[in-house]
């Protein structure tokens, strides 16, 4: 029974990890860019939510209405003004520029907000629980976050495979030059992809802020969790990324249960095992 709770907690947090990963996966799929600042942008969104809730006096979930569009706009501008220039065959420029960005965001937040831990208050929903089965209680908030995470991934899947925008993403990813012949401006398509990715980052950031304490230095670990979820699940598959997130969450929960210091290490070990035994991931989509 105790183990059921552990696994359940792992699954619920895994949804959050899957959301970290989905944004990362989208960007890599469309433009072969790994955004090292991805985790720091999640933290940035959390701080944005903090500022929004404090100055406007609204709740965190309402704050989403502001934070999501703002982050999407930041994403569009970032891609258009900075990251589009780094794209090309050489992998050093995008890697180094996003690394530089990561350092800038972390230290910028440090200057503005200090290293103090922060947390968003969501009120009564934070402690409410719901009984699932006899003896198994699950927090309402984690459940809601999990449901939203699954919904976000389903929405992304829908956008990608059933809308003209998604077609544009996939075509540009396949062959950017021929996509131009279809009237698609690559710079705009890439910027839209980044905007979408950061919209998801915004949701993830707000959830992170409500769920646990956060501070400017947490970016890299969010990036790493997202990255591990992508690799465990398999490149190219969004549902695979969800599975990867769940597995990571469960691994961490099991580790934490054995010993608190082992939580994150257990996740890393799960990742390394998958890397050693099945490097293509558990549910890879074979791309032509």
């Amino acid at each position, binding site marked *: 029974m105790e183990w059921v709770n552990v696994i359940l907690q792992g699954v619920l947090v895994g949804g959050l990890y899957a959301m970290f990963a989905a944004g990362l996966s989208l960007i*890599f799929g469309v433009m072969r*860019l*790994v955004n*090292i600042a991805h985790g720091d942008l999640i933290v940035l969104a959390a701080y944005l939510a903090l500022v929004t809730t404090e100055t406007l006096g609204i709740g965190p979930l309402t704050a989403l209405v502001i934070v999501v569009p703002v982050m999407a706009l930041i994403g569009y501008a970032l891609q258009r003004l*900075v990251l589009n*220039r*780094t794209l090309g065959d*050489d*992998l*050093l*420029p*995008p*890697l*180094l*520029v996003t*690394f*530089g*960005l*990561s*350092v*800038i965001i*972390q*230290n*910028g937040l*440090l*200057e503005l907000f200090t290293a103090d831990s922060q947390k968003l208050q969501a009120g009564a929903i934070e402690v409410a629980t719901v009984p699932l089965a006899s003896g198994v209680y699950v927090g309402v908030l984690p459940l809601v976050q999990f449901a939203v995470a699954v919904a976000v991934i389903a929405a992304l899947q829908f956008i990608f495979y059933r809308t003209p925008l998604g077609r544009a993403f996939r075509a540009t990813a396949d062959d950017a030059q021929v996509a131009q012949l279809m009237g698609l401006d690559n710079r705009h398509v890439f910027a839209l992809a980044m905007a979408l990715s950061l919209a998801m980052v915004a949701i993830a950031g707000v959830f992170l802020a409500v769920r646990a304490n956060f501070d400017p230095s947490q970016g*890299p*670990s969010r*990036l*790493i969790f997202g*990255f*591990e979820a992508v*690799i465990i699940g398999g490149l190219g598959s969004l549902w695979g990324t969800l599975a990867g997130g769940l597995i990571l969450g469960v691994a961490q929960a099991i580790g934490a249960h054995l010993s608190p*210091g*082992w939580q*994150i*290490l257990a996740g*890393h*070990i799960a*990742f*390394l095992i998958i*890397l*050693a035994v099945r*490097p293509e991931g558990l549910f890879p989509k074979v791309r032509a």
Partner: protein
Amino acid sequence: MNVRIVFGGASSRIGMALCACAVAVLAAAPFWAGRDDLFLLSQIYCYLALASLWNLLAGYAGLVSVGQQAYVGLGAYVLFALAILAGVSPLWAIPLAGVFSAAIAIPVALLVFRLRGHYFAIGTWIVAEVFRLIASQVSMLGGGSGTSLPAAVIVGIAPSRQLRDFIIYWIALGLVVAIVALIVLLLRSRYGLALKAIRDSELAAICNGIDVKRTKFLVYCLTAFGTAMIGALIFLQRLRVSPDAAFSVNDWTAFVIFITVIGGIGRIEGPIVGTVVFFALRQTLSDFGALYLLMLGAVAILVMLIAPKGIWGLVVERFGWQVFPLERKVVLDAATVARE
């Protein structure tokens, strides 16, 4: 027909002469520099060595690692472990730390080489995190808060503090000279030619019979060897080690990458230029704290966007200089030339 391969040219002869003079002057530093200056100089040497090694890995072998702090920390911890638990003299522990880390690098490489490009980079970061987390669990070496070098061990290096400072300084200078010299020799060898080929076009290199995998493997392990020794030295000098300090991404990767990028990636002179610029900036801007790192990040981004070859890259394009004799020239003998 007789051909010879000749390395270098006029500028590299001048450059090498200047380097030799510089090294001689620096070797005598304990006699003309104060304690703080010696400390600063050894820091400069350590960063120069780390940047040169990272440059070899990323700029020449194309392995962009964001996780070299794994070996800095590993080297440091091995030194402390050997000194505290086995009573090994720290001076011997430095090369031993290097060898041990090179050995660890082998299974790490086997794992992490399964990833390519950006994913490889993050994979190396994860490995460094794993090392850090494991180090925090080892209570014999202080766990999460780390441990200090016992007095007996410190005194074992040399009886007086001044002599200790001098010895550590000379080790630092010796290490950086040895590392840069080794890198130059490597690049002059056929492995160096292979690396150049791999950097230009991996596919073409494979088709020409170059064992790309083995070459990259070799470079990765050699870099781990050098990085670990420097890590051991750095923390020997600090007399204290802790997981967060030893495996710090900012100190051992962010700074190193910025130095190499700003100085010029893919050329040996780059890290030297970059280290000088970095320390000059640091001395002038050190009061700004987090803002300093922020500016460094911004400068690195600007350099990458505007002048991706770095400062030395611009110099090379403009003047064609090289300090280290690495450019190969094919020289035909007189008879062959006459026949044309």
